[in-house]
Structure formats: C-alpha cells, structure tokens
C-alpha cells in the first residue's frame, strides 16, 4: 500500500512545487469562498453585512495565518521555502550590490590570504621531513654552528651510546666530463650509514656497503632522481654504467626515488652521492668539513644525548685541546627551518589580522544593514511569518554571502599559492611542497561562514523580540540598542588597531630593507659577471696526482694550472666589451668560505682554541681592480708575486685596525702556522703588502671580520677551481658566450659552472628581507583600506540615522561647523582608541620580529609615529565625507523625513 501511496502523492507534491502560483490562487479563492458563504449564512440569520463579515473573519482565525497554515501542510514546504529564500536573498543582495560586492570581496581576501599563509606555514614549519621518523634525526655541530673534523666524528660515533646510528656528509663539487657539456655537479660524500639512517629505500639498485668493507667500493655513486632524468633520460639500465667525475671513473650502483632530497639544509642542491672514504684523514682533528647526522636510539631523549656528548667532548678536549669547543646537537628539523621561523610567524600574524579585519568589516556591514531592515522584519512578522521562518530567511542570505565570499577566497588562495611558488625567495626551504591545505581552507571557510551567520542573523533575532507595532511606527529605525552601537564601535576600533599593527610591521620591514640595501658591499656589483672554472677533470690536474700534496683528488700541478689561469685571464681581457678580469677562490656571498687561524709575529700566542680566524681568499693579479675593491694602503697582488718571491698578503681594514691599531700594518708579518709548534724560523711568515676596505664575505648583513687575500701563485694546494670575475662595459650577459669560448679555447676539459651576474647574487642575499617587506606592505595596505571602508560605513550609517536629530539641531541654530566637528569627534575618538591599542600591539609584534630587523630598533619611534600618522589621516578622510554629508542636510527635509 505504501508504494502506491507515494506514487499517488508525488505528482501532487511536484505540482505544488512547480505550479505554485496557481496553487496559491486556488488557496486564496477557496478561503475567500468560505468567507463569502459564512457571511451569507450570518446575514441570513439577520446580522448586518459588516458584522457578518467580521464574525466570519474572526472564525477563520486570521485570513493570512490560515493560508500560511495550509501552506505549511504541504510537505514540500521546506524545499519550497528554501528556494523562496534563495530567490529573495538574491534580489536583496543584488539591490544593495555595492554592499554585497564589498562584503564578498572582504571575505574572499581574508579567506584567500589566510589559506595561503597557513598552508605555507604548515608545509614549511609543521610538516615533518620526508625521512623515516624524522623527529628522531639530529645534527651534531662543532664550534657552535660549524662542521666537524673526521677524527671527532669517528670518536663521537665510537664513544656515544645515545644513537642508533650516526653518519657524516661532506660537500663535494665534482666535474662531470665525458659528456657533451662538461659541468660541475653538486654532490655529497656520505658515510655508508647515512642512507639507511634516513630510512629511504633506493628506487633502483642499492646503497653503499658498510664502512668496514669499503675497499674496492670507493668509486661508486648513487644518483638522485633529478640527475638520473637529466643526464640519463630516466633509462632504467643505468646501473653499472660509468661516470667520469673529477677525472675518475665511478660506477653507478643506485638511483634514489623522486621525493628524496638530502641534505635538507646547507647542501640542498646535492644530486649525487659517493662514499666518504676518509682514508688517512681519520686522524685529522683539524679540517672541519663534515656534517654529522644521527638518529637517536629508541627511548633516548635529546637532553640525555646532549649530556652524553658534553662528557665525550670534555674528554676529547682534554686530550686534544682546542678541537672540541662548543659541540651541539640540534634536531634536524630545527636546523632546516630555524632561521625562517621568525619570518613565517610574522607573516602568520599579519594574515590572521587581515582575516580578522575582513570578518569585522563584514560583521558590521551586516549589522548596519540589519538594523535598517528592522521595519521589514516587523512587517513580515505581522503578516504571519514565524520566528523560525524569519531566521531561516536571514540565514539563507548570510550563507549565500559567506559562501560566495568563501568560494572567491578559494580561487584567490589557489592563485596565491601558485604565485608564492613562482616568486619565492631562494632561501626559503620546502616551498615546492606547498599545496592548499584542505584543513586550513575548511577552517577559514568556517570562520567566514560563522561570521556571516552570527552577524547576519542578529537583526532577525533582535527584531522578533520587538513589539511589531513600535517597529512599524517609527519607519523601521527603532530598535537601536546601545549594545549594538557599542558592538559596532568595538569592531571599528579593533579594525583600526589591527591595521596600525600591520602598518608598523610593514614600516619596520621597509626600513630594514632600506638599511640592507644601503650596505656597502666593499665591491661594485654592477656589470660584473662571475663563473666557477674548474680544472679537476682536465689533464692539468692529472699531472700532479702522483705529486699530490694532500688527499684531495684532482689537485693541479702548480705551474700548469697557474699558467692556465693566467692565459685564460689574458684571453678574456682581450674580448671586446670586457673591461677587466680576475680570479679568486670563492665569490663573496655565493661561494664557499674557508677560515684559518693565524698568528702574528712578535705577539704573545693566544690560548689554544682562542686563535683569531681569518677568511682565506686567493687572488690572481687583477682581481681587486675587477671587483672594484678600494685599496687603502700599500699595493694589491701583482705579477711580481710568484712562487719564488717573498710570501705576501693583502688584509682587510678590520684586520688592520684590530691588530695594528696605531701602526702601519704594511711590512708586518703573520703566519698560518703556529710558531710555537712549527718553530719560529720554520714558520712561513707572510708579509702584509696592502690593506683593502672591508667587503662582505658570506652574509650580506654580517659585521666585518678578518679577511686575508693571498696570491694564487704562492698558495696552490687547496682546490682545483677558481672563480672568474669579469667587469663588462655593458650588460654582463652579452659577453657570456664569448668568455666561455675563450676559456675552452685554452683547455677543452675544464668545466664552467654557476655563471651569474654579481647583481643576481646580491639580490638573492637580500631576498628574504625583500619578500617579507613586500608581503607585509601589501597586507598593511589592504588592512588600511578595509578599516577605512569600515569606519566610513559606520560613520555614514550613524549620520544617516541621526538625520532628524541633526536637522533639529541645525534648525535650532547649530552651525555647520558644530555639526561637522561633532561627527568628526565621534569618529576620531574611535580612531584614537584604535591607535592606542595598535601601538601597544605594534610593540609586541616588533619584539616578535626581532631577528628580521636590521638597522632599525624594534621600538623605532619614527616608524610608529609615521604609521599612526598615516592611520589618523586615513581615519580623518573616512570620517570627513559622511560628516560633510551631514552638514548638507537641509533642516526642513530632515525634520520632515520619516
């Protein structure tokens, strides 16, 4: 019976859904009909027509109400009402389109920006590293933040029990030859434990056999996925093939999967892994070049591991003084994201503020509009709309607004993420992994919907509590509780405070940026092209394999390599468009940085471990001129400095001032050997021949330290590559090809890599600061605009409401000026409150920003005053327009206005 029943009723219900109009007409007619009949019956009994009619109506319990009740019996009512509400909401929203668009846009901005920012923070800061149990991985460092020596690594590994396994990695940049275009690769020498420690299985082949069985396996490599694709086209039969690295033949034994990236900091570009093969270096406690990665044993805490390491290093320090200072264990994750935390957290705050401002804006826009519609609500409830029905309608309206805003916000978010990945600063890690986090999106959507609902439904709730008669009488402008007014004022004050905080943050960042850009690098970065030229794979280096001075392979025979570099420099200088050319070992800011301790002749030797350190630079003649470095005293390195002449060096201003404060350093001596151990006569004393102005070394904003420049001719044995710097007459890129041809013209087997203009290097050094400043400034401007709109809306509404009152006042003799100042005072009071709160908040935020700032104090009064001033001007403008409109009110019209 039931299915039959349904079958019958469905057409009925559909009809009432789709043929609503005729159904309505019929209902009307039916009831009217009934009234007629009842009236006629009473008339027949002797009543007058009016009385009969009245009686009939009374019996019907209200015409409209009964109709509504009949309508409610129709089961499709719910769907019907929803459709009706949607249609109505559409009409309402379209009528006040300015409001609608503003509200949607504000919401979209808040939702979009927050989604992007929180997704970024989540993927960079919160997501675990892509290794097995990455929380248990740590990095061991020496001398604070620095690398560790091989002997220390061996001892730490042998003597500690806190770690399940420990391995070391060393940076390696081999030359790949035997291919069409020889190039330098980024690679790591890793101990056999490293890959198993990280817990990622190779995609093809195997990883390295354990340390003990190293013999015969030193010349194996494991490729990264990217290198495999790029160099071998993803060919699966790559295992067993040979690669020529630094002139040596290496066998490919494995390929890592696509998601694998190591190391996550410091050597982030490594795409090739070879065994560490320490060999004779296992006893070296000096050359600090290893980074140690370890996995904590199960159940061992970081603190106990640290305590154990402290004991071990204390013991080692006793045995070998000066070699084990300040050893630290840092969780791997911390090392990766540590220095970016401040930026991201600041951004998070900024975005949260923007979201709050957006919600506040929408909130009081809805409140203002809701108050204006009290009349409408009262009328509708008088006509029979139940409270639930009213709430439902307002809810629909708010939901549509919130969903539209949220939907648009999602689009903004998707675009924002794409933009972020495209324009990211180079040194922000893990940016590629940023994707729209659905949790974040849901959250922000939820926030916007909640705001829409909370403030959109308020008028319905409020109005239904009123006596409809009063509400209708005053033309819909009663019901203005002081509580609602206060809510609105609080909202505006909050918006202002938040906007001010953002302005302060942006101001501080902008000043930081200015200060950073004003730093004099000590050289002239414009029109300067740089590239790394390596002879590791060419016959030049083969010549000295047997005469090798150290365990580093590929060290060139001294005369041959020097001749090569000199010849190359000559040929490059001859190219049209080239002004000058020179060579150094490492480029400031971009290259590696070597430091060595030094001793000054005739001075008391410092305590072991306390020796001063100098940055170690090599240079060929012409380097200083090409870089545009300023010579302060003496001379630079010249042709006359050869392998057979006196050992000389050029020092920087800082070193001169520090160690020879009141004398001319030119002619004085220092050495890189400890005269106490080497014997005062055997020590290779170096004579200072010149002083140059301080130049940046590895970080743009770091304070100056000691730096020493030595002639390449007198100091070969430290590597098979030099960095070429070329000053060009015009755009550096133009002569790039010609330079490369010139170099290969001298020797076909050298590799050229990292070709880049110095300006790009400098720009990259500042990229994080620039990124933060730009983002903060953008947010601040958006926040300012939205708050301005907010206060404008509130003031305009208040003025419109008090039109009558203003009219009365003016009719009674108040001048335009009085009215104007009255309105302005109200608005500025709110702005003032917002400013006070904002300044306090700004102080807190700037404290948080601490490490981001440079050259400006966290409580810089100029920035604070400027931001507050800007905000005040904006507030004044936003108040002024409605205030002026208030004075234009014609008293007569205002008095009559109902």
């Amino acid at each position: 019976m039931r299915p039959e029943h349904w079958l019958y009723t469905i057409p009925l219900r559909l009809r009432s859904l789709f043929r609503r109009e005729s159904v309505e007409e019929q209902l009307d007619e039916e009831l009217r009909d009934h009234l007629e009949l009842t009236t006629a019956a009473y008339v027949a009994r002797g009543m007058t027509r009016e009385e009969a009619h009245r009686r009939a109506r009374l019996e019907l319990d209200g015409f409209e109400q009964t109709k509504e009740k009949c309508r409610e019996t129709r089961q499709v009512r719910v769907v019907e009402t929803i459709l009706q509400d949607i249609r109505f909401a559409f009409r309402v929203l379209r009528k006040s389109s300015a409001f609608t668009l503003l509200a949607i846009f504000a919401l979209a901005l808040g939702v979009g920006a927050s989604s992007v920012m929180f997704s970024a923070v989540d993927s960079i800061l919160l997501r675990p590293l892509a290794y097995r149990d990455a929380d248990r991985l740590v990095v061991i460092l020496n001398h604070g933040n620095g690398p560790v020596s091989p002997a220390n690594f061996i001892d730490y590994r042998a003597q500690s029990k806190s770690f399940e396994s420990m391995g070391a990695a060393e940076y390696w940049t081999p030359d790949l030859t035997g291919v069409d275009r020889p190039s330098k690769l980024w690679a790591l020498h890793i101990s056999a434990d490293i890959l198993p420690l990280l817990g990622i299985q190779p995609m093809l082949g195997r990883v390295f056999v354990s340390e003990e069985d190293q013999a015969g396996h030193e010349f194996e490599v494991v490729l990264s996925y990217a290198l495999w694709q790029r160099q071998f086209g993803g060919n699966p039969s790559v295992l067993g093939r040979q690669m020529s690295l630094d002139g040596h033949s290496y066998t490919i034994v494995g390929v890592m999967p696509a998601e694998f990236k190591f190391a996550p900091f410091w050597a982030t570009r490594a795409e090739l892994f070879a065994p560490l093969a320490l060999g004779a270096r296992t006893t070296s406690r000096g050359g600090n070049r290893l980074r140690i990665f370890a996995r904590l044993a199960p159940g061992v805490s970081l603190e106990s591991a640290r305590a154990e390491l402290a004991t071990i290093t204390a013991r080692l320090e006793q045995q070998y003084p000066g070699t084990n200072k300040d050893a630290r264990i840092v969780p791997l994750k911390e090392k990766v994201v540590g220095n970016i935390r401040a930026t991201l957290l600041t951004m998070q705050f900024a975005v949260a503020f923007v979201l709050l401002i957006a919600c506040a804006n929408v909130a009081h826009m809805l409140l203002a509009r809701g108050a204006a519609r009290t009349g409408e609500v009262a009328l509708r409830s008088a006509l029979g709309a139940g409270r639930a029905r009213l709430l439902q309608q307002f809810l629909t309206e708010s939901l549509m607004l919130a969903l539209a805003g949220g939907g648009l916000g999602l689009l903004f978010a998707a675009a924002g993420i794409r933009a972020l990945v495209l324009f990211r600063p180079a040194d922000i890690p893990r940016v590629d992994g940023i994707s729209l986090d659905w949790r974040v999106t849901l959250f922000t959507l939820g926030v916007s919907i909640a705001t829409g609902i909370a403030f959109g439904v308020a008028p319905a709730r409020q109005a239904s509590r009123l006596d409809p008669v009063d509400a209708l009488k005053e033309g819909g402008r009663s019901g203005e509780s002081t509580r609602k007014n206060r809510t609105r004022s609080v909202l505006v004050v909050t918006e202002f405070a938040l906007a001010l905080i953002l302005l302060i943050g942006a101001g501080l960042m902008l000043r930081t940026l200015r200060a950073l850009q004003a730093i004099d690098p000590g050289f002239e970065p414009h029109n300067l092209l740089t590239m790394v030229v390596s002879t590791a794979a060419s016959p030049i280096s083969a010549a000295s394999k047997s005469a090798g001075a150290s365990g580093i392979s590929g060290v060139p025979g001294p005369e041959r390599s020097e001749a090569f570099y000199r010849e190359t420099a000559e040929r490059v200088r001859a190219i049209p468009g080239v002004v000058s050319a020179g060579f150094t070992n490492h480029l400031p800011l971009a290259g590696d940085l070597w430091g060595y301790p030094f001793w000054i002749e005739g001075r008391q030797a410092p305590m072991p471990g306390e020796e001063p350190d100098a940055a170690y630079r090599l240079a060929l003649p012409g380097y200083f001129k090409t870089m545009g470095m300023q010579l302060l005293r003496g001379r630079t390195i010249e042709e006359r400095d050869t392998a057979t002449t006196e050992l000389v060096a050029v020092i920087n201003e800082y070193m001169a001032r520090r160690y020879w404060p009141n004398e001319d350093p030119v002619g004085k001596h220092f050495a890189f050997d400890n005269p106490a151990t080497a014997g005062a006569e055997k020590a290779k004393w170096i004579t200072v021949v010149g002083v140059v102005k301080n130049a940046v070394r590895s970080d743009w904003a770091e304070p100056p330290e000691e730096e020493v420049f030595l002639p390449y001719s007198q100091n070969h044995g430290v590597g098979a590559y030099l960095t070429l710097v070329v000053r060009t007459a015009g755009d550096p890129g133009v002569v790039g090809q010609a330079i490369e041809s010139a170099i290969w013209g001298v020797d076909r087997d050298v590799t050229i890599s990292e070709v880049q203009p110095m300006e790009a290097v400098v720009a990259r050094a500042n990229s994080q600061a620039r990124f933060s400043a730009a983002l903060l400034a953008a947010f601040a401007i958006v926040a300012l605009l939205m708050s301005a709109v907010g206060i404008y809306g509130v003031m305009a509404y208040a003025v419109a409401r008090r039109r009558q009152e203003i009219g009365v006042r003016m009719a009674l003799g108040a001048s335009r000026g009085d009215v104007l100042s009255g309105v302005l005072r109200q608005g500025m009071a709110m702005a003032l409150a917002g400013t006070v709160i904002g300044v306090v908040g700004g102080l807190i935020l700037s404290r948080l920003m601490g490490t981001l700032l440079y050259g400006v104090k966290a409580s810089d009064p100029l920035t604070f005053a400027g931001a507050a001033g800007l905000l005040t001007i904006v507030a004044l403008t936003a108040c002024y327009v409605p205030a002026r409109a208030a004075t234009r009110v014609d008293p007569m019209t205002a008095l009559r206005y109902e």
Partner: protein
Amino acid sequence: MSKPSDLVQGTLDMLLLKILALEPLNGFAVSQRLKQVSGDVLQVSDGSLYPALHKLEQEGWITAEWKTSEAGRRAKYYSLTRLGRRHLEKEAESWSRLSSAISRVIKLKEV
C-alpha cells in the same frame, strides 16, 4: 449548548474522511455537516478545518476538484479516494476498538 469538545487531530481527520465518504463537499459544507450530524457537539474552527483538509489532500486520502455549483459559482469540492477509503476503514476500526475498551473500563461497577 455544551462546549464543543476538543478534537484530537487524528480524530478530526477520521471524521472529515467519513463525512466526505458520504458525498463530495466543499470546505464550508463539511464544517456545516459536521455540526449538524453531531448535534452541535463537534465543531471545528474554520482556522483548523482548512489546514486539516489540505493535509488530507497531501496525504492522498482525499482529492479536490473545482466544480461550478448550482448558484453558478466555482467551488473546490473534496472527495474520498480509494486510499482514503482504506485508511478510513482502518481508523474507524481502531477507533471502535479503543472506544469499546474505554467503555468497558468506565462501566466497571464501583463497590
């Protein structure tokens, strides 16, 4: 006359169905007939009558048709459907069971 008793909704439905079972009527006539047949004991307020009729129509127990009456005016006439008839039988049966059960209890002699 005595005050009309309050009618439970389900009972009202049953009464309306029964009245319409006798002959198709419009709303006004239904209310008159009910008063008439029950001797003025049962009276439905017009405000409750029409919603009830509409609900019965939605349930599919009665169906409506617009007819021109003798006086030449259009009126909406309700009549019972087959489904409605079956429902009515069911309801009437359970009503008589209920009422005889109540009567039995009430008629118990007090001692």
